[in-house]
């Protein structure tokens, strides 16, 4: 299972508490994880990626294994520790004041 951590606002929107565990088909990539996430929680469509271009929304980042994966190609396999569930795939909102 792939562990995904959502920003607080998206957990509220999807009505989930804590991490999300997803069964993601191989190869496990950013795109595959996000496709599985949106299939499980349709209300998240458009909140992480543009619904048409599938580009990451500019104020969000993807982290895992202490790396920023935001600019990696979406079809590149995720780190081994994410695949095995040792580390979560983190979707993070940019910090901002106000």
């Amino acid at each position: 299972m792939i562990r995904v951590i959502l920003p607080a606002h998206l957990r509220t929107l999807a009505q989930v508490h804590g991490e999300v565990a997803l069964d993601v088909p191989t190869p496990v990539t950013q795109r595959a994880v996000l496709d599985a996430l949106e299939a499980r929680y349709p209300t998240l469509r458009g909140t992480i990626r543009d619904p048409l271009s599938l580009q990451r929304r500019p104020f969000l980042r993807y982290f895992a294994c202490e790396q920023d994966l935001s600019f990696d190609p979406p079809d590149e396999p995720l780190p081994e520790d994410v695949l095995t569930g040792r580390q979560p795939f983190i979707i993070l909102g940019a910090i901002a004041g106000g």
Partner: protein
Amino acid sequence: MSAVRVLVGTRKGAFILSADGKRDQWQISGPHFGGWEVYHLKGSPVDPGRIYASQSTSWFGQIIQRSDDGGQTWQPAGNQFTYEGVPGSHQWYDGTPHPWEFARVWHLEPALDDPDRVYAGVEDAALFRSDDGGQTWRELPGLRAHGSGAQWMPGAGGLSVHTVLLDAHNRGRMYIAISAAGAFRSDDGGQTWRAINRGLKSDYIPDPDAEVGHCVHRIAMHPDRPEVLFMQKHWDVMRSDDGGGLWYEVSGNLPSDFGFVVDIHAHQPDTVYVIPIKSDSEHYPPEGKLRVYRSRSGGNEWEALTRGLPQQDCYVNVLRDAMAVDRLDPCGVYFGTTGGQVYASPDGGDSWNAIARNLPAVLSVEVQTLP
């Protein structure tokens, strides 16, 4: 006894203020969608339990929420707003072409006869419609195809359809307004549009009486006299007696003809309310006095309404969608400020009370009058 529900959109969520017909004791529920900007929420005129809300942030984009129980519970609806065909471009601030890009829904206007039909005025300026309770949205592309779309330029707040008015007596007729393009009318349910800006004069555009380019802030229409429109423009309060065919100025003795809101008494079509704001650039009440101005003669002669409103050191703004009236007798008038206050007058504007004092900055106020 009848009741009133005031729907308040703010920078950090939605709030619902409820009272019985006396309108002297208010209950506040919320925040709904805490932390999100709620540009607008509005109830269906044929099913007051049905409320639509526009929820957005720069982080997560646009969400449409729907309630079927008067705002007690909410369900996310559809959030895909895709322009029809090749979107093309409008003017950017520097005059260069800029591709049409959806940013957010500014205004939701439920249909007069079907709770599942709702219109959405969006940024970048376009009009969408849903016929399935907000699940799916389709653009009415005739507006952007008007022919002048490539000339439209955003105001400081963006290029947005912020006013949507439906004519109860002529079901094909509707009006929209765009900052900063102007006002438009459709007589065929939104399929085709004509610019209705004749008579407007705007010294901040190269041709002051151009067909488009005017920064219209808000238009109000009384449901029983739909051919008469009142407009608060970026400077000038205007009136049209022929459905926007020709406008003439009715600013009269206002201390500032700049402002954002304009609305009309529920039972007196010639009684009009505005809130003058100091501009350019300050955007707070003149002299630090928060005053609603009322005309009982359809414009030109205005009286200041001050009882219960702060008359010193007040530097809030009242944004374009943040005034509404109820249908009770006497008519109630409501507005919200960027300082987080919501003021209500249960007597047509003669006196005012703050029914909420410490909300986030108010973006919109709508009122439902309940049986």
